[in-house]
C-alpha cells in the first residue's frame, strides 16, 4: 500500500469533514425561495429545476453545450485516422505478395 497517498487522503478527509460540519447552519434560503415562488408564473414551468436550467441560468446551459461540442470536435480530431490505417495494410499486403 502506498503511504504518501493514504496519508494525504487522511488529511483531506479530516479537512472536508470539518468543512461540511458547518454547512447547514449559515445557509441563506433567499435565492431558493425566489426560484420556487416565481418558477411557475414567470417561466411557465412547473418543474423548478427545469426553470433554472433553461431560464434563470440558461447561460450556463449554453456553456455546457459548448463543452459537449468541443469534446465532439476533439474526439473527431484525435480518433479519425482511417487513411493511415489503410495505407499501412496496403503496404503490408504489397510486401507480403512480393516476398512470396
Amino acid at each position, binding site marked *: 500500500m*502506498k503511504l504518501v*497517498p*493514504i496519508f*494525504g*487522503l487522511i488529511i*483531506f*478527509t479530516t479537512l*472536508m*469533514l470539518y468543512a*461540511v460540519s458547518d*454547512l*447547514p447552519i449559515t*445557509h441563506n*434560503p433567499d*435565492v*431558493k*425561495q425566489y*426560484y*420556487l*415562488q416565481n*418558477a*411557475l408564473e414567470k417561466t411557465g414551468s*412547473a*418543474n*423548478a*429545476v427545469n*426553470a*433554472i*436550467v433553461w431560464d434563470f*441560468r440558461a447561460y*450556463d*446551459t449554453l*456553456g*455546457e*453545450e459548448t*463543452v*459537449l461540442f*468541443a*469534446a465532439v470536435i*476533439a*474526439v473527431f480530431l*484525435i*480518433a479519425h485516422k482511417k487513411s493511415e490505417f489503410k495505407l499501412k495494410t496496403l503496404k503490408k499486403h504489397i510486401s507480403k505478395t512480393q516476398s512470396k
Partner: protein
Amino acid sequence: MIIVYSLIAAVILTALGTYALLAKDNLIKKIIGLGIFTDGIHLLLISIGYKEEGIAPIIRDINYQQLGAMVDPLPQALVLTSIVIELSITALALVIIIQIHKKYKTINSKHLRRLKE
C-alpha cells in the same frame, strides 16, 4: 439525521476517488478514479439542498403552502451541468488513451516516460 450520513458518504467517495487517481498506475483506473471523485462532489452538492421531510420542487396546482418544505432546486441544476462536463472529459480521456495504446503498446503511466525533464 440523514443529512449527516449523505455528506459523510460524499466525503468518503471523494477520498476514494482521489486515492484511485493518485495511487493506481493504469490510466483507465485513473479515469475511473476521476469519475468517482466527481460523483462524490455531485453527491455533496445535492445533499446541501436537503430539507428534512422534503418534497420534490415541482409546483402542482399552485399550492404555495408547501413551498417551505421543498428541496433546493439550484444545486440539482448545477449537478446537471457538471455531469455533462464530466462526461465530455471522460470521453476525451478515453479517446486519448486509445491513441496512447496504439503508439506505446502500454497504458501503464510509469512507462510513459518519453518526455524527460
